């Protein structure tokens, strides 16, 4: 039981990652793919932040009387990763808008049919 309690956090995060991953690779609609990509990435962030938590600790901002702090390094890494994620999302969504204008559809099977196969 103790073993499970140690890891439940990680396992649910793995489940969330795989849900996002599944949406990315199986969705036909491009917007949904981007949503899936975001879910995938956000879940990876949870993995990093989970590893930084110290039981009984608090946020890594120096406060009088507190001695136990959670680890600030994963926080820094994820701050960067979040921004990278939104940058990719913005570019991806712009591509979708252009694809809609050029093809009239954002369903993958529909515009694949409109092009010659490569």
């Amino acid at each position, binding site marked *: 039981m103790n073993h499970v309690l140690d890891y439940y956090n990680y396992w649910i995060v793995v489940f969330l*990652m795989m849900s996002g*991953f599944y949406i*990315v690779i199986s969705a036909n609609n*491009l917007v949904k*793919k981007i949503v899936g*990509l975001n879910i*995938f*990435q956000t879940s*990876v962030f949870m*993995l*990093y932040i989970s*590893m930084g938590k110290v039981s009984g600790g608090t946020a890594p901002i120096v406060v009088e009387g507190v001695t136990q702090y959670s680890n600030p390094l*994963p926080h820094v*890494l994820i701050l*960067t*990763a979040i921004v*990278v994620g939104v*940058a*990719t999302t913005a*570019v*991806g969504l712009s*591509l*979708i808008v*252009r*694809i809609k204008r*050029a*093809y009239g559809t954002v369903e993958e099977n529909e*515009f*694949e049919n409109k*092009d010659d196969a*490569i």
Partner: protein
Amino acid sequence: MLEQHLAVLPILLPLMAAPIVLILGRNALSWGLAILVSGLACFVAWQLLAATLSDGVIRYAVGGWAPPWGIEMRIDTANAFVLLAVTAISTFVLLYSKESIKKEMDESQHGLFYTAYLLCLAGLSGILITGDAFNLFVFLEISSLATYTLVSLARDRRCLTATFRYLVMGTIGATFILIGVGMLYMKTGTLNMLDLAERIHAYDSSRTINTGLAFIMVGVSIKLALFPLHAWLPAAYTHAPSAVTAFLASTATKVAVYVMIRFIFTVFGAEHVFEDMSMDWILMVLAIVAIFKCSYMATVQSNVKTVLAYSSVAQIGYMVLGISLVSATGLMASLIHIFNHALMKGALFMAVGAVFYRMGSVDIKAFRGLGRLMPWTMAAFTLAGLSIIGVPLTVGFVSKWYLVTAALEQNHWVVAGLVLAGSLLAVVYIGRVLEAAYFQQPDEGQADVKEVPLTMLIPMWLLVLANVYFGVDTSLTSEAAKHASDLLFQNSDAISALMDSLHGPTAQAVSETSGLTGEVLQ
């Protein structure tokens, strides 16, 4: 005073030039500044390579904080060599692009092209120079985003879907790398590559670390387009603007190959990756399939850019094959092929871009009779094509030579034979184009096609001549590649030795010779 900061200049120069170019806009100043910056970066890379060959590893602590608390740049012969190739190609392609993009992009986009190009150069340089695993991820994303922008600048609407697919696959790859680095961090507490190496080896075998390795390898394989994760490449290279394809085909995937080499040899150690995890067989099989399947695919395409795109995936197969042989010669073959392939493919894509400039199409039908109408361009294509095939006196021959030697050293006769067989397929797909150019008549109404402007011809021919020069006089490239691969193998052995003698005096001596400095040892 500037000498001590050489390590960070290749990143800093393009990185600061990019916003300036955005402000300058689309005039000739942008192009001039971009070439100046790229040329300077190339010069710095040259200095860095010379310094690593004579003095050893260069380490630069950004922010003044010593690693692993701060981020360090770590340059040894391997990354200096690849950096030289990247910056040189970048400069040549910039020279070429001034005319080339006039026919392929609206004028209002030219300023953004140069900005994105410089960002891509900064990103690729950052990946090569950094010694910190998470910093590598950040620069990987900079270069990736810039690449997506560059590919999508073409007028053909298919570049949009190609870019989107590239974006999705590329981001999955980057996220896998992030997961892998996270797992390594979880078990070691550090992100600095040398520090990671030392701490990983304190574990005999750990599921988390092995899974981290697997995820990093898969993520990097997507980026370097290793079969079967190469699906994004043919469409992206075919539909991107010609100058973009010339730049990316020579640099982006090669940098990813470097990342694979760096993680395998410097962070994890060859012994662990290949013996404990049997990655040598997996990589070898995938590489061979890549060489054959993709060389075959190249022979049946009607669009010449697609032919060259599949050829690129096959050539990457050669590079990975060299890695999978797990020997200093094999690694040397890979490194030398990284450099040589950049020269070959850069020239080939420039030639094809020149054809597009005049003919408006790169279907093989458009090549008919061009041997007479565009003699310089087709001669360049021929020479570079011979290089891909591996004819003696070209760099392609040099790469194949080292690869076959490395295979024979390990008594992999079959592999050596397969490498040579791959060249036969190259004869077919290059030969088809040459046949159309030299032995067929041009279509009606094409008689007034002439050669391309000098700013496109000169960089093309400089690369072609480099192909021949480095094929005849291999001293620079083979010395650098040999030095790099020896160093990488020494690192690898030193790491295994460190595991045995972690606190003894021998550890100090071992680290000195292989370039790891005492700071890494606690």
